[in-house]
């Protein structure tokens, strides 16, 4: 992408975004903006299209599910869904961490280095690996076993390895799809602390089932809900403390106070 850096307040903006699986409209009429160096959470009941929306931010959807969209997503002033945009470049600049930790079946070192190498990184690889692992708060735990398999780590360590892997290609935004849902509370806490560190340098969008997590860790929250046509949409988007203390929508209030969902 050849856009000049706009350095506006918002990194990602969804404009009247609808996402279709074939003829089925899964997400409809989403308007939200992701602020630079903040953590934006997307919450909502199962099947309301949170992950679909998240994956549309780096064009991951179209790879596996065969989706198409209406409306637009503006990334640094440029529409992501125009023909001249290469989705590979989008995913290079907007990294992703998945629900289930998925390290490559390679060594810890290779897990980090591979992404940088395919993008033609010519600097000192050892330093990049170390700094990525340090940023992901994993360096002290793995510095003596960089040659061992990434799959030999514990679940929480694997997830932080995946975060380090995403960081190694220097993305501008990191999308996290329920990154802590398979982890115990201690590992979850580590991931949340890590997110607070990372937001100094990165913009983070996180999908979560865990409302306490959204309340604790995020700056902004988007509340999603299914409408009458079974299409998910953002019913309320505001600062996290507003969503959790004075929501304007009754459904949001019911959901965050645990009355349903």
């Amino acid at each position, binding site marked *: 992408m050849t856009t000049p850096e706009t350095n506006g307040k918002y990194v990602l903006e969804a404009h009247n975004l609808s996402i279709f699986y074939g003829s089925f409209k899964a997400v409809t009429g989403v308007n939200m903006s992701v602020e630079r160096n903040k953590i934006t959470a997307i919450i909502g009941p199962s099947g309301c299209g949170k992950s679909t929306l998240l994956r549309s931010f*780096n064009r*991951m959807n179209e*790879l*596996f599910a065969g989706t198409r969209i209406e409306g637009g997503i503006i990334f640094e002033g440029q529409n992501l869904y125009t023909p001249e945009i290469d989705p*590979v*470049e989008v*995913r*290079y*600049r907007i*990294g*992703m*961490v*998945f629900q*289930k930790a*998925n*390290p*490559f*079946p*390679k*060594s810890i070192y*290779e897990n980090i280095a*591979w*992404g940088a190498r*395919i*993008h033609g990184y010519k600097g000192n690889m050892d330093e990049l690996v170390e700094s990525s692992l340090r940023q992901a708060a994993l360096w002290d735990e793995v510095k003596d076993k960089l040659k061992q*398999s990434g799959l030999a780590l514990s679940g929480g360590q694997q997830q932080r390895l*995946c975060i380090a*892997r*995403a960081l*190694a*290609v220097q993305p501008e935004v990191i999308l996290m799809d329920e990154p802590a849902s398979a982890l115990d509370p201690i590992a979850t806490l580590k991931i949340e602390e890590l997110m607070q560190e990372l937001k100094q340098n990165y913009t983070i969008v996180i999908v979560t089932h865990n409302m306490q997590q959204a309340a604790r860790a995020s700056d902004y929250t988007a509340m999603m809900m299914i409408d009458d046509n079974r299409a998910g949409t953002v019913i309320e988007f505001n600062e996290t403390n507003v969503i959790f203390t004075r929501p304007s929508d009754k459904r949001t209030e019911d959901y965050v106070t645990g009355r349903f969902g």
Partner: protein
Amino acid sequence: MKANRLAVEGFINDVKGRNRAGVIWHLIFQASTIVGIIALVALLLNIINGAFGYVAFEARVDPASLALDGLPLEDQSKEQLIALLQSNLSSGAFSKLEREQPFDKRSREKLYQQVAERIIKYKVVKVWDLWPSLTQVAQIRATLAQEYPNAQLKFVSWLTNDFITRPQSSEPLTAGARTAILGSLWTILFTILLAFPIGVGAAIYLEEYASDNWLNRLIQTNINNLAGVPSIVYGILGLAIFVRSLERLTSGAVFGLVDPTTANGRTVLSAGLTLGLLVLPIIIINAQEAIRAVPQSLRKASYGVGATKWQTVWSHVLPNAMPGILTGTILAVSRAIGETAPMVVVGASTAISFDPSSPFSKFTTLPIQIYQWTSRPQAEFRSLAAAAILVLLVMLLSLNASAIFLRNRFSRRW
């Protein structure tokens, strides 16, 4: 357990009956396994039974009469053996031997073999299988003394080093399987060269690139059906395409490597390509299975760091699918080695005594050789066939062993 729980209305709690049914099925499954094992053991015993045993043979010329000044034939020197050959063979036959390989270049053992073959001319008069050879020795000797008083009796293993290294011959005592073994190896080489890259490439395309539309579904269905087409049909296809239509290519005439007046398309290359077509669908299906078994999360991880499709396939999908691809390929190739019918159709020679030396050589393969030997009326050729079957089995087993080895090795890549 005491029946202290009251019967619940509507339930007939017949645990004993259910367990009985389970035991019966258990026994049925066990019996099927045992039948399979018995069949396998019977097969092996049958082959081994034919590959060893007593042989009675007579000599046209008594070796004792060839003794030189009391020196028995076995102890004579190289020069004495050459002289012996010269005096007993016609001059034409002698100079023909000399032309094939000069006598002074031949070892003493080889010369002794020539003397045995051309002067003494041992001739098999009767063979016995392994089982009677072990259990009825006295009876065998009695029969022999009565029917062939001049014959010698010897216990032989038909499967010997010589059997593997000697070329085909019409004389059972000196016939070997080298021509057929080399023919099989040459053929299989071209089978792999054709089928592996194309098969893996097609599997990658179908799994990773092809979209889900009617055309690709049609292709997929056809590949699945092709895997079940009888091999003789592939033989006819190979005959039409490789032997006939592409004759100038498969005979080597295009490259000017062969004598164009005698060249024809019935070559190692044609046979290998035909077998390649035969196993291609199997390799594609096996490779697809292996590629499909690579978890989707791995592809997502790769795309997630901004990799292209090709980088994802090359760095993650293929390395992780490779053990499965290799196993599938080797199993397909072991099927190809044992194929007989298509080889008959594409024109494997049955009686050939020179080794295949290039893609454009005439050839025979082990299964063809076995078939040819078993169809001979003389019992001694059936023993040769049994020995050749053992060779074929060993080749197949070592291929399968290498499949397991490769799978384990590639699974421990990192």
